[in-house]
């Protein structure tokens, strides 16, 4: 789907780029905070990275996954930002090939605060609990999608059911997870 969105942007559909921003903004900000610790600055750098990506998109040929390409741009933008601000970039580097696994890098986690860790754990636990509370078929479908990274077609083969059924099961799971996450987030805002 990313490739189709990229082709649409290349053909003049700016709105398609908006969807790519919606999809990847959390990840890109998370990656950039590994370099730029100030949250406000990190958001500025992330915005700059997306703008650079838009400018470079006519040359994107799809040799690598779109996210890998975007990830490289984000890392370079963050490093350039630190160089321009006369600060030393961190020695830690993440290979672009491991872009999809960067969230496991311990170096990135060291920038998190204890409060954010508590919140993260609470959210993760709430989501896992929401999944466990689902009917078995629905829980299996979302687990195969989110934890195993399977496509709808692969899940339909594994679960021996039509793709449409997989889609609606995953949707129902997302609704349940969303309700639980909202609960936690609202509690957090009230505190």
């Amino acid at each position, binding site marked *: 789907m990313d490739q189709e969105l990229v082709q649409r942007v290349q*053909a*003049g559909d700016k*709105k398609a780029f908006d969807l790519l921003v*919606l999809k990847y903004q959390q990840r890109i900000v998370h990656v950039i905070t590994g370099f730029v610790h100030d949250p406000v600055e990190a958001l500025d750098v992330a915005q700059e990275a997306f703008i650079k990506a838009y400018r470079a998109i006519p040359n994107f040929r799809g040799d690598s996954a779109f996210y890998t390409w975007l990830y490289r741009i984000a890392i370079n933008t963050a490093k350039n930002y630190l160089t321009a601000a006369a600060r030393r970039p961190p020695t830690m580097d993440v290979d672009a090939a491991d872009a999809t696994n960067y969230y496991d890098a311990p170096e990135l986690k060291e920038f998190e605060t204890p409060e954010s860790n508590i919140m993260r754990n609470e959210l993760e636990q709430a989501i896992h609990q929401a999944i466990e509370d689902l009917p078995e078929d629905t829980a299996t479908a979302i687990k195969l999608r989110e934890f195993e990274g399977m496509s709808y077609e692969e899940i339909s083969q594994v679960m021996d059911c039509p793709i449409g059924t997989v889609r609606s099961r995953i*949707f129902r799971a*997302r609704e349940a997870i969303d309700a639980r996450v909202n609960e936690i987030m609202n509690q957090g805002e009230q505190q």
Partner: protein
Amino acid sequence: MTANHTELLSALVDGELQGQELDKALQLLNNNELTREQLQRYQFASDVLHGNTHDNQRIDLSASVAQALDKEPVYSDKTKENVKASVIVLPKQFWQQAAGLAMAASIGALAVVGVVSQPQNQLVPIRTVANEVPVETTTVATTGNRWTVGEAEVADRLNTYLVDHNEYAGASDVFSYARVVSYEAGQ
């Protein structure tokens, strides 16, 4: 927003939409703020599961990025072609010089290979081989790339010639006789 719409958004998060469904989702996102919020909530939950969030805050850069992109050009397929064309086009003089250099380099390489390969192989003229091997004592047969003869001394000498020939053939790109024999024997 209907259940069908939210189901569409769920599939969008999973990257499972194409063609008309993707069109429809894009249209919904552009025209309905609630749809955008819903998509971001789904995406956020997925990002939390994968540890992709910063401080577990919901971030929305899309508005500021879109505003910044207002000043940027809208691309078209023509733009893409122009970008490609500007990379490929080179002056005619460049190609002439490159062709000349390539030709000179290949002639040089050929000369070097010829000089290097000749002295390494001390060839024994075939006529000498013929003179040294008494015709009446040889009963020669070939099996694979080995000679089979009655006398051990003659067999050794023939095998030495064969090895020399193989080495020369390998160095000078001449097809080895032994390989032909071996190939035929394999048939």
